[in-house]
């Protein structure tokens, strides 16, 4: 199933592996950053509700 490449196969797979790592890393950091920001906003809004009720 994996395609056969000529003598430069190592270079091709290395590029795509690095591509996957860098793009994957970017996607991961963005998703984590978004989730953290959303959670922080929810927590802050909850705290203001409490403060207003008191």
């Amino acid at each position, binding site marked *: 199933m994996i395609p056969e490449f000529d003598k430069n196969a190592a270079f091709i797979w290395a590029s795509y592996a690095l591509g996957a790592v*860098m*793009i994957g890393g970017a996607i991961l950091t963005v998703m984590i950053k978004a989730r953290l920001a959303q959670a922080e906003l929810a927590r802050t809004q909850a705290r203001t509700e409490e403060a207003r009720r008191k």
Partner: protein
Amino acid sequence: MFSWFANPHRFLTLSSWLAPICYALGALLIAWGLWQGLWIVPKDEYQGGDIMRVMFLHVPAAWLAMASYMGMAVMSFIWFIWRHEVADIAAKAIAPLGATWTALCLVTGSIWGKPTWGTWWQWDDARMMSVLFMFFLFLGYMALRGAMDTRQKAARAGAILAMVGAINVPLIKFSVDLFTSLHQDASVITVDGPKMAAVYLWPLLASGLGHSLLFAGLVMTLMQAEIWQRRAAQIRARLIAGD
């Protein structure tokens, strides 16, 4: 169209459905481009055999390096003139992602260059040199924004630098082309789109569009994160001020 930039709330609703579409479509196109590029497309002896398959990752990254910087410069210009907050948020979100794809372009280019030119860094390749300096422009932008103490100053300083950088890109490109054209014998690899065989062209366009859509989705998600972060900060500030 400009009012769209003005208000973060409208952007949140817009991006809530647009970002997932970009991710889905982008993933689809990248997968198809990859499948074609690595499995289906025949080897091209003239262009060094299988190694040219790296182009389905390298060329989209090169395109995004340039396009993302120009996008960042346009957003900076809109923010600098009309002070639409969303434009600044967009410029701030583009920078790290643009730098990532620019780095990816440099890395894949140097890996591609090793078997082709026998060196990890080919000084006489005009495109690689231009992308290298785009990378420094991104780093300078992020470093400057990071060094400023308030959000408003970071936005203004960043906007000035992005616009100055954008004005200089053509000059940098021209001087680099002149520099490399004098030293370089005819380069073996000429990857210019239209003349390429159709069988290579479609996967390349698909990969290019796929990466661009993925990039757009990530920018929108990063922008959402920034808007939520600012909202939380504003609520905390009001909490402290006690009103």
